[in-house]
Each structure stands twice: as structure tokens, then as C-alpha cells.
């Protein structure tokens, strides 16, 4: 009796695996995307409008919920404006890196031979080198800005996708259903797109979520160091840098962008963890 109840509770816990992470992560992402899309419609002040009377207003000031900065600019408005830069940059870099990495990983797994060896060594070399060092050097030489940032993060990130996709695809290639498709005369491309890619989709989704968080951190760190966004752009990295210089007078200048970054990265990580647990749950419940 007790054993059965425990088993039932365990089974229940399993079917709910990852659910709360998905709910909270999804809710956070929905709020952030909502702000991003609706920021033109919502009653938000101009993020660039300076007002020298209202400088250094603290948290909770009427009209300025998050306070104002050294030029009297509304911090809430600047935080929302920073969404466009940070999320846009991280999302684009994630899209590029995932696409390139998936294509190369699939190629390596399905073609084999020299293609595989070149991809393998490329991946090993890329993963061994500290990304931020390379990013700083590239941005210093090539110049900073939105697209250089996106391309640098892409260049340094594709290898992770390639490695995982290759490993998963190689495992899938040995499955009977792929063999059956081969015997039925399906082309390599058809097998890759119709049979292998759907099989690795859950893993890919989890990686996309985590990579997005990492890309956002890299972007804001590089901007914070003065190598990413232009100095006058309202981005979280720039806001942190401005806040750091005035930490003694107005600590909230730093806390607002720090909070934005933490919440966004947390949302991405929660989604990633949630998707991972959710897809694993399916496998478990079939096995049991």
C-alpha cells in the first residue's frame, strides 16, 4: 500500500518534472517580450530625455519608479530601451551560432571522413580558447557596434552547437528508423532534415536557451568594458558602467541594469532547465 503510494507520488512528480521552471521561465520571457514589443505604446518616458532638475532621483520617486541617472534620464525607460540591444544582439547571435553549428555538426556526423576530422579539430581548438579574450581582440581590431558584436559572439559560439549536434546525430544514425529510411532510398538531405533533425530538436532547444543567456552575458560584459555598444546607446552594459562610476552617490544606478541582466539570464536558464526536464520526463514515463 505504502509502496504503491510512493510509486504513484514519484510518477506524479515525474510527469510534473520541469513544469514550474517552464511556467516561471515562460512568464518572465513573456513579460520581457511584451515590454520589448509594446514599448512604443506603453506610457514610458523618452530614455534619452535629459532633465537636469530631476538628477539622481532614488527608487520609487513618483513618475520615476526606478529613479533617474546623472542626467535625469528615467532609469525604467532606459532599462526597457536596453532590452532591444541586449535581447536583439543575443537572439541574433544565438540564431546564427545554432544554425552554423547544426549544419556543421550534421555534416560531420553524416558525411564522416575528412569533413568530420576538420570539424572535430576546429571544434576542439575553438572550445579550448577562452572566448572573451578572442572577442576583445577581434572587436578592438575590427571596431565595435551591433553587427560586429553579433558576429563575434557567433564566431565564438558555433563550436558548442557543432559538438553536441554531431554527437547526438551520430547516435541517431545508428537507430533502426534511420536505417529503414536509408533502405527505403531516402536521400541524405531528406534523412538529415526529416529524421535526424527532429530527433535532436529537444537538445537543440535546451542549448539555444542556455546559449542565449551566455550570449547576453558576453554582450553586456563587452559593452561594459567599452568594446561593444557605442557609449551613448541605452544598453544594460553601458548603464552598469555609468552606475559603477557613481556607485558612492547613487547605488541604484548600478542595481537597475544588474537586475535586468540577472532576470533575463535567469529566465533563459529556467526555460532551458525546464525543457530538459520536460523532455526527459517523456522518456522516463514511456520506460516505466
Amino acid at each position, binding site marked *: 500500500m505504502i509502496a504503491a503510494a510512493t510509486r504513484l507520488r514519484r510518477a506524479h512528480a515525474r510527469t510534473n518534472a520541469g513544469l514550474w521552471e517552464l511556467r516561471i521561465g515562460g512568464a518572465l520571457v513573456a513579460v520581457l517580450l511584451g515590454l520589448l514589443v509594446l514599448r512604443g505604446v506603453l506610457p514610458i518616458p523618452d530614455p534619452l530625455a535629459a532633465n537636469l532638475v530631476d538628477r539622481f532621483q532614488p527608487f520609487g520617486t513618483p513618475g520615476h519608479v526606478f529613479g533617474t541617472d546623472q542626467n535625469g534620464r528615467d532609469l525604467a525607460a532606459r532599462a526597457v530601451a536596453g532590452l532591444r540591444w541586449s535581447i536583439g544582439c543575443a537572439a541574433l547571435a544565438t540564431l546564427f551560432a545554432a544554425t552554423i553549428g547544426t549544419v556543421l555538426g550534421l555534416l560531420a556526423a553524416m558525411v564522416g571522413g575528412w569533413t568530420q576530422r576538420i570539424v572535430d579539430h576546429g571544434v576542439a581548438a575553438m572550445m579550448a*580558447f577562452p572566448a572573451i*579574450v*578572442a572577442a*576583445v*581582440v577581434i572587436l578592438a581590431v*575590427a571596431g565595435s557596434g551591433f553587427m560586429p558584436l553579433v558576429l563575434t559572439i557567433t564566431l565564438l559560439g558555433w563550436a558548442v552547437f557543432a559538438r553536441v549536434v554531431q554527437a547526438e546525430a551520430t547516435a541517431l544514425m545508428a537507430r533502426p528508423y534511420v536505417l529503414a529510411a536509408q533502405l527505403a532510398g531516402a536521400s541524405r538531405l531528406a534523412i538529415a532534415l526529416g529524421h535526424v533533425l527532429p530527433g535532436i530538436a529537444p537538445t537543440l532547444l535546451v542549448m539555444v536557451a542556455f546559449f542565449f543567456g551566455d550570449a547576453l552575458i558576453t554582450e553586456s560584459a563587452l559593452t561594459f568594458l567599452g568594446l561593444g555598444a557605442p557609449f551613448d546607446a541605452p544598453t544594460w552594459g553601458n548603464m*552598469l558602467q555609468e552606475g559603477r562610476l557613481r556607485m558612492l552617490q547613487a547605488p541604484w544606478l548600478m542595481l537597475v541594469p*544588474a537586475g535586468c541582466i*540577472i532576470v533575463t*539570464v535567469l529566465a533563459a536558464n529556467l526555460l532551458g532547465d525546464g525543457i530538459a526536464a520536460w523532455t526527459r520526463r517523456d522518456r522516463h514515463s514511456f520506460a516505466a
Partner: protein
Amino acid sequence: MLHRVLTSALIRAAELIALLLVVGTVLFFLLRLAGDPAAVLAGQGATPEQIIAIRQAYGLDGPLLAQYLTYLRQLAVLDFGTSLASGEPALGKVLHHLPVTLLLASAALALSILLGLGTGVFLGARTGRNDGRIASLLLFVVQGVPGYVVALLLINLFAVQLHWLPPFGVVNWRGWFLPTLALAAFLAPKIARVTAANLQEALREDYVRLAYATGAAPRTVLWRHALPNALLGATALAGTQLAFLLSGSVVTESIFVVPGMGWLLIQSARSLDFPVLQALTAVVATMVFLINLGTDALFRHLDPRLRKQQR
């Protein structure tokens, strides 16, 4: 055994040389795509005469292929040129800043292992209990906070609010606390998570059940039977992450004004001190190579299964 170690070291070395070659080539063409390399090499605020002199001295008026070959020849003998900022040899300047980074990274590694293992054992032994769940949730949140935000929050708390420690600089021993803590905050949660997961797994193994069956105390089972096996995963992680402590120290050093390689990297990037940037890239790649080699050897020594495979 020795033969295998040697072969894998040779393959790694070939990978390193290939990597350095690729990085060097990318930098070579990036520099020429981004604008006039002579203007970059002459530094900011150079006169037209100085730029022309640089162009002739570096052979930048010759054909591109000849330039590339000269460049490769210089790379091969580790001649990175002289720093544009100070006129010292670039490689010597980088090596001069190396010890500070090594000190910071090893202090942070030691602290991470201490904190990470402690938290990991606590969590791993308490799965399914509420305090364990709350702790792992906290860990998840901490892991999502970027290292440089942690650094800023630490300064805010310990230097600005409490006045306990200096906000930046390492003029005395008190200055080392915050940079070390900030860098460890990046690695410790990872070690904790891996240790906890491995410990949970180890506690479900048959040999643990056997140990309980022979009447061993729970504490003995945890520390003597389960933990040594769980440590393997943590060691592997610490090894692979050591290279990334170098990444973390880029941001940490420039926030806390610690004059190591990371600080030098940002300074050189801001002033576009190209020879120093290049020497830095080569030194970092070499260090990562050596670290990976060392971790491999250590791991082979620690894991009896790998030792057996070798024979």
C-alpha cells in the same frame, strides 16, 4: 603508456600550432580589412611621417602575400614586435603581467574548490529534503548571475556600504579579497552542482548499499565510500574550467584594477596596442594548452579505470 601520452601531447601541440596560425591569420586580415594597418601600428595621434616610416619598416607597402609570409616568419620566432604604448618588447610585457593573473586564478581556484565541494557535499547528501531543495534553488540563481555583476555587487556591499575592503587595487593583501571572491563566484557554483550530482549518483551505487549492510555509519559511507568517487567528476570540471578562469579574470581584473594579463588585454584593446594583443593571444593559447595537458595527466593518474585502459 608513455607512447600514448606522447602521441596525445603531440596531437595537442599540433592543434595548438594550428590554432595559433589560424588566430594569427585572422588577425592579419582583420587588421587590413578594418583600415590602414600602418595607422593602427603607429598608434593614435601619429603624424603622417611616422605612419609612412612604419609602413616602410613593416613592409606594408609590399604585396599582400609577401607581407603575410614576413608576418608568419616573425610569428614562428615569437617576434611580436614592440608595444606601441611603452616601446617594450610585446612578449616581455605580457610575461611581466603573467604572475599576477596566475596568483589570482590559483587563489580563486582554491577558494572555489573549498566552497564548491562543501556546498556540493551538503546538497548531495540532502536530496529530496526541503533545505537541500532551497539550497539548490539558490545555487541555480547564483549561477545565473554574470561574474562581473557579482563583482560590482561585491564592491557595492563590502566597499561602499560596509567599508570593510578597498573597492579596487591590490596595493596590500586586503585588496586581493574581493577579486578572488568575484572570480570564485563564477566557478564555485559549477563545482557544487557537479559534486552534488555525482554524489547523488554514487550514493545509489551497490557498493554504498553494501557498506550500509556491513554496518558502516552513514558518515563513514558518505566520506569514505561515496565522496572519493564523486570527486572524479569535480576534478575533471575544475581542470577544464581552469582555462576559463583566465576568461573570467579579464573582466575581474579590469573591474578591480588588478594589473594582470586580463587588465593588460583591456588596456591594449582600448588603445589598440596591436603587438601586445597578439602576444597576449599567443600566451593565453599556450597556457590553455599546458593546462589541458596537465589536467589530462592528473586525471589519468586519479582514475583507476583510465590507468587500466592505458596498459
